[in-house]
């Protein structure tokens, strides 16, 4: 039975609250009948009135309070209404939640999940459309993960909540909420890479014949990346495998190494919805380059992302500023 990303996450939240009394939801406007700005928390406050807390508009304290809950044995899940507002909680995430376990010499755990709907293509303009997750990547002690339409968004949320004892920033895509979760894609073989260092897997869709190159993405870019590889196959005869990360930070080094060692083709393209400078693709491509070089191979690497200016409000300007399937396809095609 088909399920949307929104349904998958909502069902996971219901399941988590049902199975574990330590799970507490906290955020702005998350009570029924409103159920959150994107309706992700729908139904929760009706079933679990004592464990769903609606808050003042106070992102810093919401994350701080949730960190305190986590330190004292609860399993808080925060909703930040728009991912852009994560900056308001930056001190809490970086100087508090991410630090406690290590600086207290492993005497404590901070099992905190901060859900943040991110991204553009909704006409919300410069301050409600960004993909700012790159600013939280590379912070020791902080996990950044992103569900996609490929895989199981709800399962990822369950892993973030129940299997990860550190703080997790969970990057949801506004535009993917209404899309259906995809289990398999015709013409591709699906491989899941995982290792004991984390519960978060990487998905690799490979053609049955050796590919000409690899396209790497996460979260919101996944539908566009899928469209690009299908276009390149059908219209250009190029076989491009697709890698979809769910763990963005810390870098899933063993997954990257495995893929870089076994992938075919020498073209590597990375697609992200943020501007690419100092971004996620810089980290992944640097690791791919190192592995490729160790193996005596060469790589042509290209990155696709948003324009380096704020996201415009006007729909046409917004569309022009953001990476599309055809942008990705063109960049890959230009490598051949």
């Amino acid at each position: 039975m088909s399920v949307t990303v929104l349904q998958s996450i909502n069902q996971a939240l219901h399941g988590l609250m049902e199975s574990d009394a330590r799970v507490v939801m906290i955020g702005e406007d998350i009570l029924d009948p409103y159920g959150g700005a994107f309706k992700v928390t729908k139904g929760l406050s009706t079933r679990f009135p004592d464990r769903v807390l609606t808050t003042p508009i106070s992102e810093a304290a919401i994350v701080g309070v949730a960190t305190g809950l986590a330190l004292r044995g609860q399993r808080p899940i925060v909703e930040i209404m728009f991912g852009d507002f994560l900056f308001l909680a930056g001190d809490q995430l970086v100087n508090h939640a991410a630090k406690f376990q290590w600086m207290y010499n492993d005497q404590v755990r901070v099992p905190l999940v901060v859900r943040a709907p991110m991204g553009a293509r909704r006409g919300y303009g410069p301050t409600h459309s960004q993909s700012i997750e790159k600013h939280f990547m590379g912070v020791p002690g902080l996990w950044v993960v992103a569900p996609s339409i490929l895989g199981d968004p709800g399962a990822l949320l369950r892993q973030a909540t129940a299997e990860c004892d550190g703080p997790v920033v969970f990057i949801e895509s506004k535009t993917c909420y209404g899309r259906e979760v995809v289990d398999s894609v015709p013409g591709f073989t699906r491989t899941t890479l995982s290792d004991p260092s984390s519960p978060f897997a990487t998905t690799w869709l490979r053609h049955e014949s050796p590919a000409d190159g690899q396209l790497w993405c996460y979260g919101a870019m996944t539908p566009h990346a899928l469209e690009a590889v299908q276009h390149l196959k059908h219209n250009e005869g190029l076989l491009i495998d697709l890698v979809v990360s769910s763990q963005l930070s810390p870098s899933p080094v063993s997954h990257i190494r495995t893929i870089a060692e076994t992938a075919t083709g020498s073209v590597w393209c990375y697609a992200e919805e943020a501007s690419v400078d100092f971004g996620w693709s810089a980290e992944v491509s640097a690791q791919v380059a190192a592995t490729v070089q160790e193996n005596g191979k060469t790589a042509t690497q290209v990155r696709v992302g948003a324009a380096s200016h704020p996201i415009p409000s006007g729909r046409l300007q917004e569309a022009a500023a953001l990476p599309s399937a055809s942008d990705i396809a063109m960049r890959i095609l230009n490598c051949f």
Partner: protein
Amino acid sequence: MIVLERCERSASAEQRYELLAGIRLFEQSLLDLFSAGVLTGTTHTCLGQETVAVGVLSAIDRPRDIVFSNHRGHGHFLAYCGEVERLYLEIMGKPGGVCGGRGGSQHLCFDNFYSNGVQGGIVPVATGMALAEQQKGTGAVAVVFLGDGTLGEGVIYEAFNMASLWKLPIVFVIEHNGYAQSTPSTMQIAGEVADRPRAFGISVMECQSTSAAVIHQHAASAIDAARAGGGPQALVCYTYRLGPHSKGDDTRSATELKAAWERDPLIAARAEAGAAADAIDHRVAARIADARQSALEAAS
């Protein structure tokens, strides 16, 4: 491990003085060790403010209550658990320290005691801890220490608001020492300190006395009220920092400091200890010296 005796609610004047003197000697020895180049990094001593630490933390229920302290937290830590040798080791960056040498002076964790060195951010975290204890029904109270300098951080008002909305068992202790680092309160606080928590419907007590016994009475009633379901409480303690903000960074006038040292709360505390004071001084000096020496000799 060498420890100082912590004070319970029933503590005598002698016991309070012994702990106050221990905190004082410990911190003075830290400043000496920095001057001698034995310690590196930074530290923030609470010279002159020890009575707030001892007064407030002798009122907690040690097994269950939570304490969240700040950058100026040695006095709070020692009043909470007395673990003076482990604290030396921590500040020396040694594996036997409270946090294995990872946290140092400003980042301590021991049982239900926590501290962090960034201003303001600990207040919502402590508020969340109080919420957790309320949800679990443990009856525990969280006590969080702020300074007058911290009042400039906006996040504390978000936390005051939530604590009051949800009637959380938390006590906000504001140690008003008159300075935010080098800036006098008159240049950095508009309006009245007590009006800030009061604006959120939080009960506020003000304590002008620097006597540990008087501070204790106020703290005990605040903690009892929070535990009884009365919601958050604030206690503003007017005090004075006799030492520098950190190490050698004191720009206050010699006249001001001289007058302040003449009002040192430990003078009165020592007088209250009466005939036992000399013996206490000797005992504490020996204990601090032993803890310091033992920590200095411990493996790095």
